[in-house]
């Protein structure tokens, strides 16, 4: 007998390139905020899910075990989930199933990343995800890979670079209202992005979100006990996830089909037939500006190749018809891999609960979708929240 699952609390630390706090301390600060938001004590929490991406970032092998006491996990049923860049939305999916299954009434989800420990730059850790025999001997890095994907996307649809740069401008401006933001900029322009340092054509410096330290937390609660905590719950509508093989060489990169598979799974569960009409706003994963567009299309929020046009027309602005990344996204708030749960799912909760402050979407949204993406262009994780 599947239980309906509500979100009753959220928390998020500031995101910065390097924070003084340990991963445990960051986890504690985010978890405590979510517990205070919900008005809940450690004793009220049945189970804990930790989401944190490769051990190589923090530099602590089996870091889920290291972080657990900071996540209220000491002496509790606790599990770490991890699937690279998809973790920020997969961790809350795991929190959802702990409650939906009836095993827990209340489940705390903490997502943490400390990329600053990998010194001098976490790119060295990313180098280990490639095939050790076929790819790594050539010393590739992820920017090259995404530059090729971006190029393919631009070529297939005839997209101009300036229409992609608009995404970076929108998100860095949206982040101005976010108290955790690392890269908010109220004055950034399309020209700033187009004039930023070329890294691997067509990817320039301001097309990319930065590595960050940070943590976020969410509390999930069963329909059976939710009235103890709130009269006006935000509900999980649906969840979906999908992963393709590492053989990215064998698929056309212009469209992320695994995102569409994950979205369809979530929409089916949520009873969403026409996502463009029924979804009010979205937080697609935006580690690069073109990825927001790519993922809007993967999430079936528009036609293939239409996302840059909607962006140019202002539809995706916070006060537009389909606000996209009202949080400021990864481009504006920062990209501590798993902790981007703060923008991709906590933001849905804050918007739907009317707790988004300066970032609040003015049109009273009732349904939002968040999505994360990762690995070698493989993984998609999707969650729909609704009021």
């Amino acid at each position, binding site marked *: 007998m599947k239980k309906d699952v509500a979100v009753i609390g959220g928390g998020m630390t500031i995101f910065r390139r*390097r*924070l*003084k*706090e*340990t991963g*445990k*301390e960051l986890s*504690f600060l985010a*978890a*405590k905020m979510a*517990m205070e938001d919900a008005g809940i*004590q*450690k004793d009220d929490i049945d189970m804990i899910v930790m989401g944190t991406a490769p051990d*190589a970032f923090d*530099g602590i092998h089996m870091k889920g075990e290291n972080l657990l*006491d*900071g996540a*209220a996990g*000491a*002496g509790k049923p606790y599990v770490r989930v991890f699937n690279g860049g998809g973790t920020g939305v997969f961790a809350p999916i795991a929190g959802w199933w702990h409650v939906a299954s009836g095993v827990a009434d209340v489940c705390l989800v903490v997502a943490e990343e400390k990329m*600053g*420990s*990998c*010194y*001098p730059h976490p790119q*060295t*850790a990313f*180098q*280990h995800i490639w095939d*050790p*025999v076929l790819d*790594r*001997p050539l010393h590739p890095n992820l920017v090259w890979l995404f530059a090729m994907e971006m190029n393919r996307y631009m070529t297939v649809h005839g997209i101009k670079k300036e229409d992609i740069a608009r995404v970076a401008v929108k998100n860095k401006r949206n982040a101005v209202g976010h108290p955790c933001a690392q890269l908010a900029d109220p004055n950034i322009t399309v020209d700033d992005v187009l004039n930023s340092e070329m890294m691997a054509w067509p990817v320039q410096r301001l097309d990319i979100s930065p590595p960050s330290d940070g943590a976020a937390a969410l509390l999930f609660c069963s329909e059976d006990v939710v009235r103890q905590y709130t009269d006006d719950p935000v509900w999980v509508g649906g969840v979906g996830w999908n992963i393709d093989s590492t053989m990215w060489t064998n698929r056309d990169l212009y469209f992320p089909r695994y995102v569409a598979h994950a979205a369809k799974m979530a929409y089916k569960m949520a009873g969403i037939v026409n996502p463009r009409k029924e979804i009010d706003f979205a937080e697609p994963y935006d580690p690069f500006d073109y990825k927001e567009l790519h993922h809007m299309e993967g999430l079936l929020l528009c036609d293939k190749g239409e996302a840059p046009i909607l962006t140019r027309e202002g539809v995706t602005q916070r006060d537009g018809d389909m606000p996209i990344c009202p949080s400021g996204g990864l481009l504006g708030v920062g990209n501590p891999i798993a902790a981007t749960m703060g923008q991709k799912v906590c933001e849905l909760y804050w918007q739907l609960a009317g707790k988004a402050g300066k970032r609040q979407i003015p049109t009273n949204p009732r349904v939002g979708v968040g999505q994360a993406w990762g690995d070698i262009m493989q993984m998609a994780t999707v969650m729909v929240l609704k009021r």
Partner: protein
Amino acid sequence: MTFTEKQTDPTAPTHWRGNMQADYLYPNGVAGDKFFKHLKNNDNFLATVCPDCEKIFFPPRLYCEDCFVEIPGENWIEVPATGTVRLFTTATINAHGKKMETSKTIGLIDIDKTDGAMLGIIKSSEMDKDLLGLKVKAILRPREQREGTIKDILYFEEI
């Protein structure tokens, strides 16, 4: 399917020889920063007291993992750099399976006036005897040589 071929030379199958580069700069954290800065300039330790359950954390921590509350600044206390051996072992073989030139005794030291303990090297005049319950004190680097790291504690010695 069964594997019939026994590999005695790991380099015999065709292969690529790789390595995993990984260098780190681990921050001490909010609590650790205060602890190590104190250790650099003092001959005793710092600990933190949970405002709810009054458990005394050593090494000091920012939060109580049981009560899940933040420990405020006024709950930091100084404690002596002395303790009692709770557990110990003497190692004679190193991690590579080789006989060590000199054996090494390590133990878990319950730090006085706290509920915490730390791993430390133990030196005693009579290394063969049972060290359980032995009263020890931390021998620190000369103050001018300290760097504010765990290595400033050289070893624990019988009082």
